[in-house]
């Protein structure tokens, strides 16, 4: 038998219109395959994200009434150690008198504490370099060259506002979202 012939007399094999149709079908199939693959891969990638119960642990309330001046406590928020420090007036003055131009990550102390509560510093105690816990919470710990915290892993020095002053860390210790629920209760997260 001969090749199929269309009503307009063109053969399939040398029809320009059919070439275009074939290209279109080919690309449309490819596009559908790509979309389908992406749709199939997405749940598996998204599956690796923090689960709902992990996200549910996102806030912590702390009573700081017993933390005296010059003392620090470490609480756990989202599995991370969070430092709450009752700063001395000397530490507050040190933190406020720094020339912002000298800081690797310039930020005024007033932006890192609540107005009127400058004595309370709340920071995430995770070094912004590679995630170690800086020393400085316990009496006798190395506090670094700036009287704040010192990370033993790769030698980052933080000041009394938790700002990076020296070493490989690129950013200040993070201030978590928090608020004073009452005079002595801090809600973090």
């Amino acid at each position, binding site marked *: 038998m001969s090749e199929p012939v269309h009503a307009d007399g063109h053969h399939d094999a040398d029809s320009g219109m059919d070439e275009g149709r074939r290209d279109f079908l080919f690309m449309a199939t490819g596009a559908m395959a790509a979309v389908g693959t992406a749709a199939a891969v997405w749940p598996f*990638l998204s599956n*690796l*994200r*923090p*689960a709902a119960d*992990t996200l549910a642990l996102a806030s912590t309330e702390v009573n700081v009434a017993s933390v005296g001046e010059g003392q620090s406590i*470490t609480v*756990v928020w*989202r*599995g*991370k*150690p969070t430092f709450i420090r009752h700063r001395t007036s000397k530490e507050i003055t040190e933190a406020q008198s720094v020339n912002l131009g000298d800081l690797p990550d310039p930020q005024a102390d007033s932006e890192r504490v609540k107005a009127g509560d400058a004595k309370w510093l709340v920071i995430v105690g995770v070094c912004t*370099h*590679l*995630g*170690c*816990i800086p020393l400085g919470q316990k009496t006798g710990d190395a506090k670094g060259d700036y009287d704040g915290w010192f*990370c*033993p*892993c*790769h*030698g980052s020095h933080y000041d009394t506002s938790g700002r990076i002053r020296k070493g*490989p*860390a*690129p950013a200040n210790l993070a201030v978590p979202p928090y608020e004073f629920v009452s005079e002595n209760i801090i809600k973090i997260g």
Partner: protein
Amino acid sequence: MSSPEFSNPIVRWIEYRLPVFSMLHHEMHEYPTPRNLNYMWNFGSLAGFMLVVMIVSGIVLSMNYTAHVDYAFASVERIMRDVDYGWLVRYIHMNGASFFFIVVYIHIFRGLYYGSYKAPRELLWILGVVILLLMMATAFMGYVLPWGQMSFWGATVITNLFSAIPLIGENIVTWLWGGFTVDNPTLNRFFSLHFLLPFVIAGVVILHIAALHQHGSNNPLGIDIKNKGDTLPFHPYYTVKDLFGVGLLLTIFMAVVSYAPNYMGHPDNYVEANPLVTPAHIVPEWYFLPFYAILRAVPDKLGGVIAMFAAIAVLFVLPWLDRSPIRSAKFRPVYFVLFWVLLADCILLGFCGANPAEGIWVVLSRIGTVYYFAHFIILLPLLSLYERPIDLPLSISNPSPSGSNA
């Protein structure tokens, strides 16, 4: 290739349906191997042997291990104390990782010295670098599983490397962790991947061997096989030589497992993970130390991470950086020196990585890092242009100089 005639009727029955015996005959008996291979050529088969040791001991360990933050540490201690020969299997697995890396690093430096990465073996080399990367990922995740202090903080520091990526870094790290810190979801997925990756390695090893058998082994002279007189059948000559190597490796390996099983470990890892206290001095396992030194040598977070990954990435393009047509360092007087300097540089970086990043160690690790990259990116390309090689021999079986350089 000639198909062998098999006399055993069962072998013939199988061979007719699944040509596995002729394949074995072809790859083992007919496969021509240079007759001048020295003991440095043992380390490929030794690496394969260590992979088998790791998979077998790992599967047995997994039958008593619990991947949960509350039970992992205790389950490993139970393996050590209560499970029959658990201590032996765990010490084999633990030290096996170190020996796997010892063998593979010697294998890699053998390739560097004898120019085994050059045409037509570039893909063979690249597959080898892929295996190295997979091994590093597997070893890192395996080290997390006992859930000791070094496990936890090693996992924290290494996963935090990805936070150096601009803009999306923090999100990637949270995604890797499955939480806001290294925690139970992290331990679970690391266990799963640690179980999977060795089989991926085995798959790439098959490709590595397929690429090897395409053009056969390089040899200490680095010249191509010219005739049958240059070769020996792989079996029995090299199977026996490889077995002798396995015996020697096992002797040393079992001596360490028996008498110094914790020599290459860290005492801190026998302290259960505490997410609130970082040990004063954290260091990775010895096989990561040179890369760790490169990471710390760069005084910038993102820069350090890029340099560390680049230290391995540069190996992928090595066949195109070293354009000299001469393979073996025996006939390259300047490359011979540079090879030993590079080896010394890598050992120096290892010591830098083991020491705190202070004082002289910072200076040394910076010098070492600059030299490491200079070796590959500057010295090797220049050498290809200016080095005058020594005359190559006529052939493997005829050592008289050919009077030509290629």
